[in-house]
């Protein structure tokens, strides 16, 4: 998993509540055997005018010019600003995979769906919960300023606006540690390699038939 320390990036607004995992990455893409390459199909139904299927050449498909991620001013965005209950729906990890593959490393919203929340952190995306009024202000800032950027500093748990003002945010210590060090679940377990080896050593004497 890629580390997350600091990020200064363009913010894209997703101005609707209850964006579910089906909207983030539609069902037909779940049949894929990959965990990468979902970026071009992120928000597929909103992003394109035709119906997307796996295997299509996405560069040839008609774009919905109205959709926020298709607008010039939001190209290269790595921070997504969203509304309540972002990521509700399925427990599959395809939604964070798609966000990440597109390039988003941070999602800011008033609230997130539970499973999506933990799946995102597991995959190296920082989710930040802020008060509704703060979010509201950010939405107007983004609308008013072309190329609007925010600086996110995970170590200090701050978001710095262009005018220098700072928003503090909360993050669970354990999740913060993992993100800062780029430790996924496997990385964490592999910190205990010695314990695993010692167990195998002992067990292969006790129950050798398990190690044939």
């Amino acid at each position, binding site marked *: 998993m890629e580390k997350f320390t600091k990020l200064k990036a363009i913010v894209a607004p997703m101005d609707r509540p209850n964006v579910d995992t089906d909207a983030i990455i539609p069902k037909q893409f779940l049949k894929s055997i990959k965990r990468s390459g979902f970026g071009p199909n992120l928000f597929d139904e909103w992003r394109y005018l035709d119906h997307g299927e796996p295997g299509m050449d996405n560069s040839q498909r008609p774009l919905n010019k109205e959709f926020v991620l298709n607008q010039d001013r939001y190209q290269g965005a790595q921070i997504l600003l969203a509304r309540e209950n972002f990521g509700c729906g399925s427990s599959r990890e395809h939604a964070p995979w798609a966000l990440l593959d597109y390039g988003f490393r941070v999602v800011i919203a008033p609230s997130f769906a539970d499973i999506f929340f933990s799946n995102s952190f597991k995959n190296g995306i920082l989710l930040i919960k802020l008060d509704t009024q703060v979010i509201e202000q950010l939405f107007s800032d983004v609308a008013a300023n072309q190329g609007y950027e925010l600086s996110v500093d995970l170590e200090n748990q701050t978001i710095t606006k262009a005018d220098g003002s700072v928003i503090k945010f909360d993050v669970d210590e354990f999740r913060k540690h993992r993100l800062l060090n780029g430790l996924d*679940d*496997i990385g964490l*377990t592999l910190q205990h390699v010695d314990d*695993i080896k010692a167990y195998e050593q002992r067990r292969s004497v006790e*129950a050798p*038939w398990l190690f044939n």
Partner: protein
Amino acid sequence: MAGKTLYEKIWDQHVVRDNGDGTALLYIDRQLVHEVTSPQAFEGLRLADRKLWRVDANLATPDHNVPTTDRSKGIEDPISRLQVETLDQNCSDFGITEFKMDDIRQGIVHVIGPEQGATLPGMTVVCGDSHTSTHGAFGALAHGIGTSEVEHVMATQCLVQAKSKTMLVSVDGEVNAGITAKDIVLAIIGEIGTAGGTGYAIEFGGDAIRALSMEGRMTVCNMAIEAGARAGMVAVDQKTIDFVKGRPYSPKDEQWQQAVKAWNELHSDSDAQFDTSVNIDAATIKPQVTWGTSPEMVVGVDNKVPDPDNETDDVKREGMIAALNYMGLTANTPMNEIEVDKVFIGSCTNSRIEDIRAAAEVAKGRKVASNIKLAMVVPGSGLIKQQAEQEGLDKILTEAGFEWREPGCSMCLAMNADRLEPGERCASTSNRNFEGRQGQGGRTHLVSPAMAAAAAIKGHFVDVTTL
């Protein structure tokens, strides 16, 4: 100090490290791998440049997507084909033993694990599939995991786990003639509900469970997940040990002696404390048939379709009305008047030799009813198919009008070409009667193999013990 339950014994033997936060790093002895839930795990390993911790702890086979008809033409559906080919490629890249589609040892993962002796008593067994609970029949701790956990086990041979609570389901006394493991487990789910086992590891005990064959115990543990429990298990006894003996992956010689000694300890101590206990009187169990869209919506075949008007709980009543609607059933219809269109005998619940024998016994010298569009028997593995053919069971079944297929998951979940059409009604020996499970709009009634065969012969449900 109170004694330990079987679950606690196996748990304690597998703790690598206590994480101090209510979870532990648990060592996994065996991982079974199939084509649907493994590709992203392999890709994750590649992306992070990680290796398998213990290649020999993994065993793979394709099952969900394989065709059950002539395989010489390969797999028609491109997505299914890609999943199977990806499994082949991944297994060869990472060095995992795989029973490929054309290998006689290929079959449903939960059938081939025990068949090969790859599932042994006292093991921790995982697979990216919820019916991994099946393997608990051997006094093993077995449960399904998600794809990221599959990758975790591949890379570390461990899982981060919180300990479950323990439940004893004791089926006391003797069942009546003709009552099978499937009837027992459906009756249990009818009693405790599909959420009854949530948060628990269930140990099945009592005389009626002890009296079951290993196949029967696997059927019971297979459906523990349908009672909400991630794991179901049965204590080791002589039957367990006899079943395991001499299989390809089973220990041999000196190690066998040593293993048997350890396995004989794999039962709950007499003074062990369970968090909950449930007792069921075996003698009251009738042949079961589900009428709704959840395995707990089940009655004896001599009963009627329940009437939502008699249900006082509003939520339950709404659920019943919705289920009857989906199933196209009217309250108070006698179960044995319900006609079926298709019959499916197979799945990791009921595709073992004993199941096929039971179906053949009913089918012998009889004919499938004229209203049945398709009655199919899908063995759980190539070896079971072979054995059944040696016993002449395929002849009996095909003469009666059943189709005899190649092994795989088949119409249990309709990921391959075997499925129900909208509105079709099926007597199925599988484990899930959810909406659309066997094909969009399809209506599933869960039954035992003997009951399914009887429904095929009569064209409607019937008490097989009166046939």
